[in-house]
């Protein structure tokens, strides 16, 4: 197994190719564009479908069509593009066809900027599109982990006929790291039995739709979606723990924020502070049982994100108020430095935990001063 230096976005693209990606549709948007560029030559070279769409609306609906047609299909985009794709995601969820979306998150709201951020957490983890549905959302923290996650997510999406979203931030898309790429899987040769691939006179016709005018039928569909979701919650929770065996408290962070937090936790350990790191990889399904267990044995949880505490809400729900929760985040495309997180860890270790008020309020009061000092 050779180690090669790969750029994140290109590694995302190649991992999907090796996972058997048959049809890709996308639209240029920084900081994910290199994935589109890479696939624009890579897929035709292999005789597979690539098309640059007229918009993210076009792209997601081409993916929707390709998914209905039975192909292993994907799009990649970044936050404003993800917003546009919400319509399609809801339809895809309602039609129960599998597909993969990679969201290389950037600063927002609005046009925002092209710097790394995690502000899409709520729109992809907690919906965004209309109706009751849950996509699988996985948030790797390195290029290698991103490759491995994408390589496996197509199978998971197929298994449950659901949406698999890889949420990374602009730093993972843009940076280069040494990685090992997985072997090339064979491309699907037979179309799934449910696909609209034309009958060829060999079977009954297939109809794929997301409309159920009779509310009772729609409720049955919703029930089926929720039953599938229960299975996903049971089987697909993923997380990683660091220094947790003897930890008295833990940092909770996902993706790049989790990775930056790991540097801070390592430094804190070197100072003798008994802190660990809990890094959720599956944001949806969220590792709520694991966090509940942590709340039974730790002094507190310290959530670090690159947004205003979107996962914080889920951590607080999961820990059910049993232990204090503290929060530190940077927003709008600003990445926290390990030193910032280390400073907060030291304060928690030295001064103990507060339980009155809301962690977001305490953080906001602090952040204003920090931003002023940095200017």
């Amino acid at each position, binding site marked *: 197994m050779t180690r090669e230096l790969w750029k994140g976005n290109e590694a995302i693209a190649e991992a999907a190719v090796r996972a058997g990606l048959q049809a890709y549709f996308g639209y240029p948007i920084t900081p994910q564009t290199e994935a589109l560029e890479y696939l624009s030559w890579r897929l035709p070279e292999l005789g597979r479908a690539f098309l640059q769409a007229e918009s993210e609306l076009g792209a997601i609906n081409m993916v929707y*069509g390709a998914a209905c047609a039975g192909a292993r299909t994907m799009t990649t985009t970044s936050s404003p593009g993800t917003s546009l794709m919400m319509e399609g995601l809801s339809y895809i969820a309602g039609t129960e066809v599998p597909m993969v979306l990679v969201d290389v998150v950037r600063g927002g709201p609005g046009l925002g900027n092209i710097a790394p951020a995690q502000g899409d957490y709520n729109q992809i983890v907690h919906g965004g599109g209309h109706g009751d549905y849950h996509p699988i959302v996985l948030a790797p923290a390195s290029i290698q982990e991103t490759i491995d996650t994408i390589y496996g997510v197509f199978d998971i999406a197929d298994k449950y006929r659901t949406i698999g979203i890889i949420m990374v931030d602009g730093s993972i898309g843009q940076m280069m790291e040494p990685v090992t790429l997985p072997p090339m899987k064979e491309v699907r040769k037979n179309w799934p039995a449910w696909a609209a691939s034309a009958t060829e006179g060999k079977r009954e016709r297939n109809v794929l739709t997301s409309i159920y005018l009779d509310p009772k039928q729609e409720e049955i569909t919703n029930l089926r979606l929720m039953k599938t979701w229960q299975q996903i919650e049971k089987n697909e929770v993923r997380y990683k723990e660091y220094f947790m065996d003897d930890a008295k408290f833990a940092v909770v962070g996902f993706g790049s924020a989790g990775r930056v937090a790991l540097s801070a936790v390592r430094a804190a350990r070197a100072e003798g502070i008994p802190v660990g790191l809990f890094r959720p990889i599956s944001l949806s399904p969220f590792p709520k049982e694991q966090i509940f267990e942590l709340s039974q044995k730790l002094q507190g949880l310290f959530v670090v994100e690159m947004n205003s505490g979107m996962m914080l809400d889920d951590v607080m729900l999961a820990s059910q108020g049993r232990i204090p929760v503290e929060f530190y985040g940077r927003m709008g495309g600003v990445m926290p430095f390990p030193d910032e997180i280390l400073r907060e860890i030291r304060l928690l270790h030295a001064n103990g935990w507060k339980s009155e008020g809301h962690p977001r309020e305490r953080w906001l009061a602090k952040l204003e001063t920090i931003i002023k000092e940095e200017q």
Partner: protein
Amino acid sequence: MTIHLEDMQVIYQHPESLLNVNTHYCPGCTHGVAHRLVAEVIDEMNLRNDCIGVASVGCSVFAYNYFDFDFIQSPHGRAPAMATGVKRVHPDKVVLTYQGDGDMISIGTAEITHAAARGENITVIFINNANYGMTGGQMAPTTLPGQKTTSSPKGRDVEQAGYPIRASEMLATLDGAGYIARRSLHDPKNIRLAKKAIRTAFETQVRGLGFSMVELLSICPTNWHLNPAASTRWLEENMLPYYPLGDYKVHPALKDLKF
């Protein structure tokens, strides 16, 4: 006189590509005629087993309940994008969309335009009845100047609401279009001409000559508040002058086609 069964010839029957069921369309609506023409052409070309249809949002949202081949149903206006996804995965199959005017040339303007520009090898059946039928007769991009609808109660005021879009003329400017024609369903002669155009559109796709679309001027008695006969006269008197019938784009390879 004795009639011998073996001497009889079937000259008219239910198309195989159309399920023998009641539709949800209003009495007098020409969707039924359009469906039948499409089904007859698919039968005659023996394409049913290779067809994948894409239904849109509007009155024809349930087209998949009537056509007897694989079908998917798209978000409002996005049928050409979905059809693109299907066709790129199955380039050897026949892919059609069936869209109304609100769907195709209002909310779906970008999707139809770029599908045509790319020369996407799909066939679009475009129903133009000058209003939003499904939602109860609101002003559409095809509503005529002065035409009364539930959202233009005093008649479409072009100063305020702008002008109708002639989709066939517009899309025919694009190099990717192989065949673009406008026909009307208001009388038997025009219905026969419409069928020929639909046949040409599918021949365009089968021959890989690019994007094909047939615009069908249609009546909407319910929302026009006219009986079917009066509706056909209204179409003839008001829509034909604004939406001239004809071929707007014909790929040179189609010109000598005989069927």
